[in-house]
């Protein structure tokens, strides 16, 4: 029985601790600021997260690049040489083309390593929603599942990952071309705080308009409470783009009060997702009702 290695990418927003605990590795994407390329390091080893988001607050434009083929080549080979099979769980194809790049390389590598299996899975999610699937995959594989079984299992769970994000503005997402929004979200909507969710196709979709920051924070908690399943056995992920500690505490306390759960994980949104979503975004993620909403379809 070959060992199964779970690999994800810089979009997964997994902290080094989580990756270590579940034995997950990741392929790095890059950020570009003022012409300088830097690896998107989820450990924030060479960049202070607060400073990073401050650049954006001051109007600095940070762009991102896909995982380069060489990076996949480096990470994949590392585990293939160790005799592992690979399940790579990548960012939603609606957000990044990385999974396609990985798939092309995987075909080539499987010729070179005929005994190895490599699965490249479009997670339909981004950020720690992608990371949560990687964790689930790691746990599943650790119980003795093969790469094929793990891949099948994860594909079936993608739309159970709920993501509710409160942003100050859609401007960053729009500029990055990473949000789908109806005409309701056009125009000068001062004070309106859009709620963004990951839809059934993996789009980041402007889902709902809420007036004011406090109301939008309440709304993501309410939405999570409404759709989460088996909360008491779950970790709820509270991730943020450099929000004020007091604000985070308020949200955390309300979740503790209203949604019984095993644990609330709080961490930063990493540089890739952060550059697209903008400072002060805040998101709640957990497993729950299957997501069926598709942007552009009338709601039932």
């Amino acid at each position, binding site marked *: 029985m070959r060992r199964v290695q779970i690999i994800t990418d810089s979009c997964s927003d997994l902290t080094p601790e989580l990756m270590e605990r579940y034995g997950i590795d990741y392929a790095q994407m890059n950020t570009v600021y003022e012409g300088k390329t830097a690896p998107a390091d989820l450990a924030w080893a060479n960049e202070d997260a607060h400073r990073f988001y401050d650049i954006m607050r001051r109007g600095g434009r940070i762009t991102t690049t896909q995982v380069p083929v060489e990076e996949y080549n480096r990470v994949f080979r590392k585990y293939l040489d160790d005799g592992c099979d690979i399940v790579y769980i990548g960012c939603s194809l609606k957000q990044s083309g990385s999974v396609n790049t990985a798939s092309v390389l995987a075909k080539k590598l499987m010729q070179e390593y005929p005994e190895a299996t490599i699965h490249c899975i479009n997670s339909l999610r981004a950020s720690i929603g992608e990371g949560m699937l990687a964790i689930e995959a790691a746990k599943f594989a650790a119980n003795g599942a093969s790469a094929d079984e793990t891949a099948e299992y994860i594909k079936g769970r993608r739309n159970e990952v709920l993501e509710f994000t409160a942003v100050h503005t859609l401007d960053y997402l729009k500029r990055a071309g990473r949000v789908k929004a*109806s005409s*309701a979200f*056009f*125009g000068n909507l001062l*004070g309106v705080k859009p709620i963004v969710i990951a839809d059934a196709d993996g789009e980041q979709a402007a889902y709902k*308009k809420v*007036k*004011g*920051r*406090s109301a939008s924070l309440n709304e993501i908690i309410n939405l999570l409470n409404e759709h989460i399943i088996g909360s008491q056995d779950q970790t709820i992920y509270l991730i943020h783009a450099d929000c004020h500690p007091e604000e985070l505490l308020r949200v955390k306390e309300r979740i503790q009060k209203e949604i019984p759960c095993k644990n609330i994980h709080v961490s930063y949104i990493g540089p890739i997702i952060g550059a697209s979503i903008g400072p002060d975004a805040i998101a709640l993620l957990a497993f729950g009702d299957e997501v069926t909403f598709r942007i552009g379809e009338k709601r039932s």
Partner: protein
Amino acid sequence: MSTQYIDSPLLMKLLRGGIDNLNKHVDEINELNVFPIPDGDTGYNMLLTMEGGLRAVPDNNEEIGAFSRRVSDGMLLAARGNSGVILSQFADGIAAGLDGIKTANADETANAFLSGVKHAYDAVAEPVEGTMLTVIREASQLAAEKPHENIEAYFSDFLTQARETLRNTPEMLDVLKKAGVVDSGGAGLICLVEGAASVLNGEAPSPVTGSFLPTAPNDLDLELFNEDSELTFGYCTELLLRLQRSKTDIELFDADIIKNYLRSVGDSIVCFQTGTIVKIHVHTKTPYKVLEFCQKYGEYLTVKIENMSLQHNNLPADSPLAEQQERKSFAVVAVASGEGVKQTFREMGADFIIEGGQSMNPSTDDFIEAFKRVNADAIFVFPNNGNVILAAQQAAKMYNDSSIRVIDSKTIGDCYAALTMLDTSSGNIEEIARNMSKAMQGVVTACVSQCIRNTEMDGFLLQDGQYIGFLGKDILSADNDRRDTACMLADRIDFTDHEICIIVRGADSNDAEAEDIADYIRKSHIGCEVYVIDGGQEIYSYILIVE
């Protein structure tokens, strides 16, 4: 004089007499504003509503029942403002009372007036006493109590009671008492009846012409008149002239002097006098001559001169002459003034803006035209003023081609809050309307404007020219400095549970000052998001929307 009955030729004369008298007093009625700022327009509203009635009857050779029906139908369409809508419903009831009658004697007239009162009350969801409603009710009831020998006697009794009731309106309505004025609509009604009575007493009415309707500025395509173009259409020239005592004897001034001159330099002439203001409209190739001539009698309040080659070829989307749009599922019609405000609403999803607001109430017909233009299955209407809601509702009742929801928006702030939450993706009319109504709840809209008379209100000794900050009918701040008035106004607003403040700055203020006020509010309300919009509206230096 003893008139036994009214037939349609006489009714026509009575209407003309009433309109003429109202026209003479229109400024005074506008100034019976409960607020000491220049946004009162009851006089205009009633005048324009009456003119609509007169336009509907080019001839007068039918029975009085049919004739008065046509008058009231014309008034229904032209109705603007609460006073106009109530007046149109009063006329509607009178027409119902005269139905099938060839001529009306004093008793029949009295009964028709009672029927008018009933219709007027039915038109208002929550009738308020101390307004025109009370004036027409008490006067009609008292005058109907005894038989009259002739029409003159009926009108005389009607007027005696109407004047008495009008005097009492401040006792019935606190806002009037506070402002020290009588009800403007009631006063307007008395002008109408007095004018009619004077015709009965042998005074000939003078003709009424023209209209106070301003025309909306167009988005002009300057390429339509190039280096090689010839001036074929001339300039559309519109002037508002205030007669000056230093230049002319106002009492003896006759607008015909100007009208005759205009004939020598152009065509499409409208020229009439209201109080000390002369409204001038002419199409001419030499507008400078008009400007030079008219300035001999006064100074200009406004001057608008547009090359008609541009006007003729380029109509804005909101123009009544623009093409009808393709049928859509949902549309939004909103009333607004100020280029920035209108543009903001358009960006937020308003399909059609009706020019207007507190000092220019759109008519029922304006709404119906807008409904036709947007051509949608469902139309959401934002009147944005308490004085416009009735006309919008009247239009909604009369229009059958769309399902219309009049949203109960009383301020620009209400509309702003509702439109930011506009989302038609549910496809459900009720849900969409409910969500927008919900978004308006708790929204505070306060304004800064300039005071136009010395008065005492809410404990403030106000002076002409001072700035005042007010919320609803309550004055919250007053100062000679515009910025300070706005800041003190903000201080008086309860920001609890509010975290967004939009400052809509008016045409008379500037960006730097608005930003300064925004900073002040940011500092005094930590966590509150404050934004400035260049609204460009007249009258209100600032509109603060707190939500």
